[in-house]
């Protein structure tokens, strides 16, 4: 197997997957770099999981090619690809204990027993489950099973590790802890991770780069801050965090172009009517229609003089609920920096 060391870890070349009339994946091109933590983000049915399955080999593209470090793997079965998966439901083998589960990939390659045991111990240490070798999956908690699934995949030193919404079943605290641990493990083993999730917060926390999927196509690929601060489409602006979309007349008046732009709620500053915005700032007047106090921050719904609603979010650095709620009905002058807008086209 010829490996091109300078080739990207994964390359999709106009990959499509059709199910009859339905285009689950529609002419997708993407490249994942060696050693990247790459996330595929999108709502259910957007095609991200289908893409993952095609990388793993459980699904064949209807057209297009998939390359693994330069080698075309499109028609290879899963067991011939040097790619491993952590499944959403972990899929541990219930009739085997933790050690046998983890060693499975080595066992089918006829690795000697002593060596298997050694590698299993290394893995258990990596995922912090030393001493659990003899337990059965039914005796483990959700978080522990997830780590066994991770160890089982990593022990084979795959070129790419695929993770299919692995944290979905964990409660919030555990999920946040696992996010940190997964990132740390990835740095340690240096393998390319491809992570599928519908949780944009998760993707932003963990990824080097994110691909945002929508209805079988990729809307945008970029770093977390790219995606967040400069969303390329209204879908990305709305799916990753919340955003205000401003177009038409107001856009023309405030920015000189009619093209719709997105501005994040936290980037808008609420000032009094007597404020004089500095240069480089765009401003708009309006009335506070609704105030929602959320502890850490407050969400304001402001109706501008043109009748458009904008959502503004402000941290409650000094004010209390009493202070903010009394702001309802006040006239205010909004302002934001012109660099903070992002054109979303159309």
């Amino acid at each position: 197997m010829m490996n091109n060391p300078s080739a990207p870890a994964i390359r999709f070349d106009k990959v499509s997957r059709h199910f009859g009339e339905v285009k689950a994946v529609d002419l997708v091109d993407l490249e994942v770099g060696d050693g990247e933590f790459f996330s595929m983000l999108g709502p259910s049915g957007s095609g991200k999981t289908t893409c993952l399955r095609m990388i793993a080999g459980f699904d064949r593209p209807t057209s297009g090619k998939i390359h693994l470090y330069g080698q075309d793997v499109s028609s290879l079965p899963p067991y011939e690809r040097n790619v491993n998966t952590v499944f959403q439901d972990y899929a541990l083998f219930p009739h085997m204990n933790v050690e046998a589960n983890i060693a499975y990939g080595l066992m089918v390659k006829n690795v000697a027993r002593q060596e298997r045991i050694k590698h299993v111990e290394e893995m258990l240490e990596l995922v912090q489950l030393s001493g659990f070798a003899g337990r059965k999956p039914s005796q483990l908690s959700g978080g522990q099973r997830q780590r066994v699934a991770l160890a089982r995949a990593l022990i084979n030193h795959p070129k790419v590790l695929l993770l299919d919404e692995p944290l979905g079943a964990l409660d919030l605290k555990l999920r946040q802890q696992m996010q940190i641990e997964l990132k740390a493990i990835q740095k340690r083993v240096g393998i390319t991770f491809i992570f599928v999730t519908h949780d944009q917060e998760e993707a932003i926390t963990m990824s080097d780069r994110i691909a945002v999927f929508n209805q079988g196509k990729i809307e945008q690929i970029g770093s977390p801050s790219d995606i967040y601060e400069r969303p390329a489409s209204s879908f990305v602006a709305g799916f990753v965090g919340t955003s205000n979309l401003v177009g038409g007349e107001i856009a023309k008046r405030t920015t000189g172009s009619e093209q719709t732009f997105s501005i994040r709620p936290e980037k808008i500053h609420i000032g009094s009517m007597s404020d004089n915005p500095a240069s480089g700032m765009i401003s708009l007047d309006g009335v506070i229609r609704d105030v929602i106090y959320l502890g850490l921050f407050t969400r304001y719904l402001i109706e501008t003089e043109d009748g458009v609603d904008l959502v503004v979010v402000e941290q409650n650095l000094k004010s209390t609920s009493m202070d903010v709620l009394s702001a309802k009905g006040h006239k205010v002058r909004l302002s934001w920096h012109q660099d903070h807008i992002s054109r979303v086209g159309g």
Partner: protein
Amino acid sequence: MPSKSSDTRPRASWGLKLAAFGTLLFLHFPMWIIFLYTFTPDETTYTFPLPGFTTKWFGVALQRADLWRSLTLSLQVASVATAAALILGTFAAAAVYRSNFFGRESISFLLLLPIALPGIVTGIALRTAIGGLDIPFSFWTIVIGHATFCVVVVYNNVLARFRRTNATMIEASMDLGANSFQTFRHVVLPNIATALLAGGMLAFALSFDEVIVTTFTAGQQTTLPIWIFSQLSRPRDRPVTNVVATIVILITFLPIFIAQKISAGSSETEGETK
């Protein structure tokens, strides 16, 4: 029946309880009667109360060569029929489970027919076919007949088990480097093992006990049920028949009982890992 304070069920009237348990008694007492009669010294009649008490008939039965031949034949037929049923039933279950193809519903219906239609229909049908093709009636014609209704028992068991397993496990196995054969050996087989065992035992008991289809598909062979059947219409060896009857109860009861235990106990090691 003690009533718990959290019991929200209504209380049954005494009449209902009596009727219920009476029915239960009605269902069970005949088998105890047989067991009782194995001890009667009376050779020619079924007199009650028993004129005496003896265990000699057990010894007599053990000496009967024709009984041993029949027993052996029954065991052989049941074994081969079960083996065939295991293979055919598992194949069918695998096909139905894995794919949605045209005619899927009909497969289950077709496999069910031999059990759903009266035994005499299967028996006569096979008789006309075998006779029509001028095939001699033999051990193999018996087995062929038995396999038709044994397949569905294995099929149902294995299919139910397939439906309860986590399909992602097979993907996981392949993902980790195992090809289809290795996956079958290390992941699929251990998971359906108990279903195969339970289905196999049921098929075995079904075949061992069968008499209607057997009478139509056997040549000169005498299986144990056929032996008993001949005793039913022309009783010659009453006491020995009693012993045989008791033994048959045990031989057919045990596999089914074990199969039940296996099916019930296996819910712990099923493929539900979440």
